[in-house]
């Protein structure tokens, strides 16, 4: 099927970290794997699904993906799950207790941190889970290490009967590097063995497991001292010795090739004796870690003097650009900022190019409507493409924190109902996949407490932002094959929303969309409006005949620009003075190459200047 799944052992391929991990998971003989999509981890499972002999599926959320993996591990199979950093928050309930019972078949959890927040709501450092859950944390720096550590993680998991956390960052997941792959070793499941004292975590059993947990961690600490992927890279310059892990370790080696570097492959438990040994050979120790001072504080607690976040930034990537001046300052040297070498040009002022919703995106119409009634509503948003509704030109989103939070927050906002907000309605905006992930529980609370919230359930039949993955609402599985499909209208009815308050609306029918939203925000009970057009980037979307603007019919009102469709642009502006007030007119055009014929803008055009692109000049004059 493709180069990665068919490559024979010993092939050297240019692989992203995510691809390398998928290959290693398959080679390790893994039988069960599940994930919920999340940047930058998504491609691991997407790629793994292309391999034979591994049962993969998109789980409804990260907690379920981990529970599936735990179940398979208890059943004696090697099992894997992958998630982005914030996904562990969701899965933590299962993780924090299962760590007491441990693993049977190798159980590996790949967690991708978004250092620098390129597409996440926070920058949390997943290495904390190692200490919190008392499980080993492995930290690869590039694709080859990701591949090797994935395989080692399965062995470690079985040897110590523990879940293993494989901690990744964007610069591992999405960096392509050469990686030599191997062959698959089949590892049949050994079968479930009843052991209620271990697998049934009632208080008495759980209490009994605590001793095992702590002795396991002690044994892992000893193992960390000799872990093969922790390496001391020698250097003659003993002014600063470095302790680093992940991509930051590569940046350290490149920036200070002559300095000794203890490159940590396992960051929990730490190999304290190896660090102590290096500390004894250098004038000062600098810990370079992304992003929290976790190793630094553990070293200090163990009585090893070191520098870290006193000279390095608390957030973001630690590259050459920040390392060089930081170390210069630490050594009391010129930090090089005044050096002649440097960029050929200073940064120029260039307009921003923020992500936008797509041409013909079915989210455009609800946001157009919300922007029109902006002053009458408080809008609790959620995680997905529709989060972009906070930006230009809609400015129609008031909150976003985490998956599914729009439901509970909308309920809370409606309950707070300050005097100043009495004339405002509360709207929750959530996508199909996010609703299934963690939103429906919040809606249940809205219904149960009679919360006055209007829910916009934007069903575009895909996990859109991560690239259009399937989920239980799409009717397809991870391989694109037919699968049972959730009926959202029936689901919300089953949660208790009254049938009269459930509306399935075609978002391309703008007048109906507007009428329904206005009607429901005026109704003081829970209501749900479900849209039903697919994401324009998935294959079930079928573009229609494009539209164009009849130049001399456009009156410059700029109504259509408030739709926010990237196919519409301004050709010229004029300032009009009417009744002593100045008003800017913006005359527009539609790029017919990109237009998908959704007709949302057509319905915003007063003079009827937007017509099918195929309409003749004769029709122009009639229009």
């Amino acid at each position, binding site marked *: 099927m493709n180069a990665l799944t068919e490559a024979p052992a010993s092939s050297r391929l*240019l692989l992203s970290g995510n691809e390398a991990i998928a290959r290693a998971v398959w080679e390790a003989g893994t039988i069960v794997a599940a994930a919920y999509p999340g*940047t*930058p981890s998504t491609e691991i499972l997407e790629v793994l699904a292309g391999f034979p002999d591994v049962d993969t599926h998109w789980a409804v959320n990260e907690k379920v993906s981990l529970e599936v993996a735990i179940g398979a591990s208890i059943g004696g199979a090697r099992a894997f799950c992958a998630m982005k950093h914030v996904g562990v928050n969701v899965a933590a309930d299962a993780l924090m207790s299962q760590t007491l019972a441990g693993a049977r078949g190798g159980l590996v959890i790949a967690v991708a941190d978004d250092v620098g927040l*390129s*597409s996440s709501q926070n920058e949390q450092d997943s290495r904390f889970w190692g200490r919190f859950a008392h499980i080993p944390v492995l930290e690869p720096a*590039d694709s080859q290490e990701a591949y090797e550590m994935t395989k080692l993680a399965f062995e470690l998991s079985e040897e110590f009967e523990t879940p293993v956390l494989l901690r990744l960052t*964007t*610069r591992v997941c*999405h*960096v*392509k*590097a*050469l990686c030599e792959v191997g062959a698959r070793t089949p590892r049949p499941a050994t079968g479930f063995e009843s052991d209620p004292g271990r697998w049934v975590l009632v208080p008495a059993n759980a209490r009994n497991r605590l001793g095992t947990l702590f002795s396991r961690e002690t044994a892992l600490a000893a193992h960390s001292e000799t872990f093969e992927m922790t390496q001391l890279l020698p250097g003659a310059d003993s002014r600063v010795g470095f302790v680093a892990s992940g*991509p930051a370790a*590569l*940046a350290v*080696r*490149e*920036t200070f*090739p*002559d300095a000794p570097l203890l490159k940590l492959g396992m960051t929990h438990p730490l190999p304290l004796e190896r660090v102590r040994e290096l500390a004894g050979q250098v004038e000062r120790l600098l810990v370079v870690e992304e992003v929290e001072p976790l190793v630094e504080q553990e070293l200090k607690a163990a009585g090893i003097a070191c520098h870290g976040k006193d000279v390095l930034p608390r957030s973001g*990537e630690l*590259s*050459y*650009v920040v390392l060089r001046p930081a170390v210069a300052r630490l050594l009391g040297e010129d930090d090089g900022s005044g050096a002649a*070498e*440097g*960029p*050929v*040009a*200073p*940064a*120029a002022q*260039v*307009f*921003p*190019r*923020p*992500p*936008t*919703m*797509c041409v013909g995106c079915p989210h455009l119409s609800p946001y157009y409507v919300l922007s029109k009634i902006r002053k009458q509503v408080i809008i609790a948003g959620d995680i997905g*493409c529709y989060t*972009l509704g906070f930006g*230009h*030109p809609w400015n129609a989103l008031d909150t976003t924190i985490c998956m599914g939070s729009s439901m509970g927050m909308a309920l809370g906002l409606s309950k707070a109902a300050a005097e100043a907000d009495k004339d405002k309605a509360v709207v929750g905006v959530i996508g199909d996949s996010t609703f299934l992930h963690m939103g429906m529980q919040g809606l249940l609370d809205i219904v149960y407490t009679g919360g006055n919230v209007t829910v916009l359930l934007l069903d575009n039949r895909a996990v859109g*932002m*991560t*690239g259009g993955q399937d989920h239980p609402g799409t009717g397809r599985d991870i391989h694109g094959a037919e699968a049972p499909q959730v009926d959202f209208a029936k689901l919300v009815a089953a949660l208790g929303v009254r049938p009269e308050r459930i509306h399935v609306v075609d978002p391309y029918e703008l007048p109906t969309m507007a009428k329904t939203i206005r009607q429901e925000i005026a109704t003081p009970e829970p209501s749900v409006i479900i849209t039903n057009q697919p994401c324009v*980037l998935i294959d079930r979307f079928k573009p229609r005949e494009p539209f164009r603007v009849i130049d001399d019919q456009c009156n410059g009102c700029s109504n259509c*620009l408030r739709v*926010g469709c*990237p196919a*519409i*642009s*301004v050709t010229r*502006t004029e300032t009009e003075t009417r009744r002593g007030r100045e008003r*800017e007119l*913006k005359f527009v055009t539609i790029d017919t190459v990109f237009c998908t014929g959704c007709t949302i803008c057509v319905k915003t055009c007063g003079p009827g200047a937007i017509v099918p692109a195929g309409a003749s000049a004769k029709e122009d004059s009639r229009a």
Partner: protein
Amino acid sequence: MSGTAFPTTDILLAGIGGQGVLTASEILAQAAIAQGFDVKKTEVAGMAQRGGMVTSHLRFGEKVMAPAIAPGSADLLLAFEVAEGLRCLPFLRKGGRAVVNTQRVLPPVVSSGLFSYPDDPVAQMLATGADVHPVDGTRIALALGEPRLANTVMLGAVADHLPFGAEALLRALLERFGSRKPHLADLNRRAFEAGREAVGGGAAQAAASA
């Protein structure tokens, strides 16, 4: 370029979502691998596909450590959109070369009048004293009958300024397109040569020296 311990060739590719920046970077990477170089290539995907800017950092050499190119250290800047070229110019090192497609792609924040597009990004780049080579890649591709060939034109425009010959890059390009869609091989070859000639390389260079 980088410190002396791990010398590398650093190429920054810049453009916007959907322009094929990542494909072009992949082809350059495969060409470098075929020459026996170690390669690292990085980009931040995710929200980029929603019309946002896309950059791909490509580094190759005997041994590549860090994947990302530091500002002021790119040997070559290959921009598929002219304002993105201007935006990324600070990544170029002194003495580096910028090859820029003069195509303009206006984001909604510009087309709706919220921000303005620079009047003459190429002039602005040249004014810094940088070695900038504008190429009307999109027009050249249109003349060949296929606007999507603009990327190939741009690859041709950098082909004579790599640590390996243009032939090596062309081979990597044709391997990518040729094997799946043989009818595209000839078109790509012509677009590639047109790109070389647009910056005075390939046949143009041969004619000048003849």
